[in-house]
């Protein structure tokens, strides 16, 4: 296995429009790094540059200690699983899996051994003589994985391999892929647009937007310490609430003013945002940070009256939607207490876990 390093990597197509801008990233040996972002953010382009299927306009790519910018895909010792699997339709499953080994002139006996090992691992032993058109989506996906696994590459690349599967199969395959990666201890770069997939699979996640890396961190940190509004809104479901606010000073306290209500920031956060007092900022609250105050006698600070527009009852919890600063926001609340559409209820904000962002740059100023 090998480390992967991108150093100031850029990609420009005709017209000099940068699709990928100055990517600096290191994927550690044996790590599963997920590239996530909206469509067109440059994640697949970056993956394809690692594979050698796209030329790197500027910057350096290292696999292990080698600079591989000019190295052809077949000499990079990588394996790739494509979004639509790219199985050779006229070949059997056995021949599909063996193709790469035959191309590298591996002895026949060794090919047979490796193919059978991969087939057993991926439960394909009874499918080896079938052609791709006779397989289900999940089986085709396993054949694509098998084709990559047999080559024992330094780095595995996955380009949205689960996006063509139905939701149930996707969940099942996610777990299987992760188990396989942990078993093989391989360095993996995994591209997806699904943030749930990213959060559940990655050791670390690289969030991209418009060709630029927004943040590279563990799933936990991305969720709890987003560097900017894009990361805060992209990671987490339902989406985080990001509303207009103002910071006001009240003696030694810093208050966040949202509409006509004021919310006290804890001291640690207040110290970090002091220089923004008097300015307009953005306040981010995840849905679970907005709590429904059921017992009106209970003394809580940081409370606000909000009118509920829509409610989704999921059984174990409820999602309630309400307008705030002209935006539709959502709170995740428990199943206690009745909620009626069109009525106002008291909610309190967990300001310990909120984030404050600079309104112009979108950067988190409360970390």
């Amino acid at each position: 296995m090998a480390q992967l390093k991108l150093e100031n990597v850029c990609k420009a197509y005709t017209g000099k429009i940068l699709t990928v801008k100055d990517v600096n990233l290191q994927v550690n040996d044996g790590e599963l790094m997920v590239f996530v972002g909206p469509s067109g953010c440059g994640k697949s382009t970056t993956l394809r540059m690692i594979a050698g299927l796209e030329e790197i306009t500027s910057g350096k790519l290292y696999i292990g200690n080698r600079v591989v910018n000019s190295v052809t895909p077949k000499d990079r010792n990588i394996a790739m699983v494509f979004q639509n699997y790219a199985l050779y339709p006229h070949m059997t499953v056995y021949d599909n899996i063996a193709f790469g080994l035959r191309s590298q002139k591996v002895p026949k006996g060794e090919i047979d051994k490796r193919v059978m090992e991969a087939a057993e691992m991926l439960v394909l032993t009874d499918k080896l003589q079938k052609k791709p058109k006779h397989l289900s989506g999940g089986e085709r996906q396993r054949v694509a994985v098998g084709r990559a696994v047999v080559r024992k590459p330094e780095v595995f690349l996955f380009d949205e391999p689960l996006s063509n599967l139905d939701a149930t199969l996707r969940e099942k395959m996610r777990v299987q892929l992760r188990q396989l990666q942990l078993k093989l201890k391989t360095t993996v770069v995994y591209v997806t647009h699904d943030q749930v997939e990213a959060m559940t699979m990655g050791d670390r996640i690289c969030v991209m937007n418009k060709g630029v890396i927004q943040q590279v961190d563990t799933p936990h940190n991305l969720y709890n310490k987003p560097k900017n509004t894009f990361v805060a809104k992209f990671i987490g479901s339902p989406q985080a609430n990001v509303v207009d606010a103002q910071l006001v000073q009240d003696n030694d306290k810093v208050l966040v003013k949202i509409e006509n209500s004021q919310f006290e920031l804890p001291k640690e956060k207040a110290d970090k945002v002091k220089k923004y007092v008097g300015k307009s900022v953005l306040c981010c609250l995840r849905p679970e940070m907005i709590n429904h105050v059921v017992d009106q006698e209970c003394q809580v600070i940081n409370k606000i009256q909000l009118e509920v527009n829509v409610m989704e009852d999921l059984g174990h919890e409820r999602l309630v939607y309400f307008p705030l600063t002209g935006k539709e926001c959502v709170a995740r609340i428990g199943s206690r207490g009745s909620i009626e559409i069109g009525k106002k209820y008291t909610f309190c904000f967990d300001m310990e876990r909120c984030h404050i962002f600079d309104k112009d740059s979108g950067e988190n100023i409360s970390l």
Partner: protein
Amino acid sequence: MKHSLIKLAIYAFLVGVLLICIVPFYLMIVNGTRSAADINAGVSFIPGSYLVQNFKSITSQLNMFTGLRNTAVVCTAIMIVSSYVAGLTAFSIVFYEYRFKKLLFGIILASLMLPQALGLIGYFDLCIKLNILDTLSALIFAGAANAAGVFFLKQYTQSVIPLALIQAARVDGASELRIFHRIALPMMLPGMASIGIFSFVFNWNNYILPLTIISTPEKYTISMIINQLNSTVYFRDFGAIYLGIAISIIPILVVFVLFSKVIIKGIAGGSIDK
């Protein structure tokens, strides 16, 4: 009722078109069994009794079977070489980026607009320089470059082979030639077979090029042999001519019958959008 009438009208029209296509062939075969006098007397749909005489007439005057053999050799070679070369060219146009690619493809397409006769003198001169004049190789080389085949296969390849397949093969470690032979070619086969068959038929009937290049009677193609029957000034043995033409098209009919499924699959496959 209205639906049945429309259906009947469509069938009647199709039968009419079928008859228009088939009747000339039938009459040609029938006339091959009649004498020249009978043919001059008028049209008949009933076979005559001059088959053996006409056959003796052809075989005594001409070397029909040598002509058939030469043409079969040339056309089979052209079929294989032209479809392979067109396939390779189309593959490069679809899956590779290189300078002047568009210009090259434009030149290939532009050559479609030039009639064969225009290039004859230049090709004749080239054959002399290459010392291949009066050889079957000269006919094969001329037929091997198939611009229409390149155009058709480019469209076909784009529709049946996704780029991801080629990229997967590259990542798998295959060389570019291996990718063509092991991945692309098997998938392009129906299209290449269609091109090959059409090349076969076109070159089977080709007369002007063999006439220009070939001078040795033992190397004559079937079209040249048939035309010898026509060259008698005083008497034209029409029965023998018709029989000769009928014999000359039998191989083409066999090819069409045997490969009709391949032709249809090749044409239809090119129309499927992936």
